[in-house]
């Protein structure tokens, strides 16, 4: 319930993670690209996982 308890905090965390990931991808190194992509994809991936988990749980 951390989302409902701290909506602004979660929104800011999501924003930070996404933007940090996309900014990291600007670097040339492959490691930065991969790490940045993983960071940027965390919010949608976590959202999808949570959504599917609730659907299965119903």
């Amino acid at each position, binding site marked *: 319930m951390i989302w*409902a308890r701290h909506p602004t905090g*979660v929104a800011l965390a999501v924003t930070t993670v996404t933007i940090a990931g996309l900014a990291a991808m600007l*670097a040339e190194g492959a490691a930065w*690209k991969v790490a940045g*992509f993983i960071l*940027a994809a965390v919010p949608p991936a976590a959202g999808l996982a*949570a959504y599917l988990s*609730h659907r299965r749980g119903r």
Partner: protein
Amino acid sequence: MTHPARIVAGTRTRPPPGAAAVAPVRFTASRGFRVSLWLHRWTGLIAAPFFLILCITGTILIFHEEIDEGLGYAAHAEAASPGTPERPLSEIVATAVAKTPERRPLALVFDADHPERVTVSLVEPGTRSFDGAKPVVLDRYRGTAIEAPDPRSTPTGIILTLHANWFLGLPGELAGGVVALLVVICLVTGVVIYGPFIKGLAFGLIRRGRGERLRQRDLHNFLGTVTLGWALLVSATGVTLALGDIALKVWQATELQRLAVAHGGQGHALATGPGASLDAVRAAAEAAKPGWRTSLMLYPGSAFSTDRHFTVLLVGPEGLQKRLFEIALVDAADARVAEIATLPWYLVVTQLSQPLHFGDYGGLPLKLLWTACAWFTLFVTGNGAWLWFARRPRRKAAGEERGAGQTA
């Protein structure tokens, strides 16, 4: 900040299956909450139709390389055999001018992705700006023209113009910037107000069977949170890119003027006669900044150079330097480098905004992520508008019920 709202009334009983909607949740809200709600609603509604077009055109532009390739608009040049020397730039320019002798060269563009190509921008004599410039693409190793359509006339080029300025030039760019700013405001105010609407709700939970309106609101909050970072980044960079032309004009009016005054480029007769060769100018600029490569050479007398100097844009060898320029002012007479200037902060912001807006720096995975986020954001915009429209009939119906009660 005080908590923006407190739930004081609401129906908690589950309505029978098929019921239209749960009773509205009512809030006593702080002034800040009400202002944010108003801003969120109206900025979203105003931006929605424009945002729809920007999302559709933006999605197409993410895949512009693939589309150009598929439609046959991509230029192809056979790779030169290893060790083949580059043709002199003067020869390349002469070949370009021979195709349209009534025009004069204003700039040479070196394609970082296709190092074998150089584009010569040709303009009418006396023209300083690039409006109406005709690009001619040539092979740097063979000195021959490469058949390539004007990028502005291809389907993706037309869509880019629609996306960037609505076919309206600078006013269109600024209008696009206003739309992007509305989206930024909509997103920020959304963060401020969405808390009370997800009270007691787990992340990823979409309530079903309690009315379409509640389901859509849960989707709105959930998808809005998931894509918030992306949407904020793309809309904020949309604002900075919309101001890009103005940033360039500011640079022209300030930094370029300073360079011209400092190095005697102001009031100087336009350098048109035989002076230093183009290759010498390029070599001098690159020698002044070892490891950096020429990206663009602007002739004296262009809107972005003095009457005496070439402006040479150099890109760095790695990392962020590859995306940022340094500007070499090179004397057209003797190829002496007058000054190497760094980009001012506002042009750095504009430069860095480009990849972060278009998402073209991470290959296919990033393009797919960009597309998914664009369409989720578009869905959130659409269902936000639906949530607003859907409440109208109920209010009307409630008003009619009240009216009927009073009559009775």
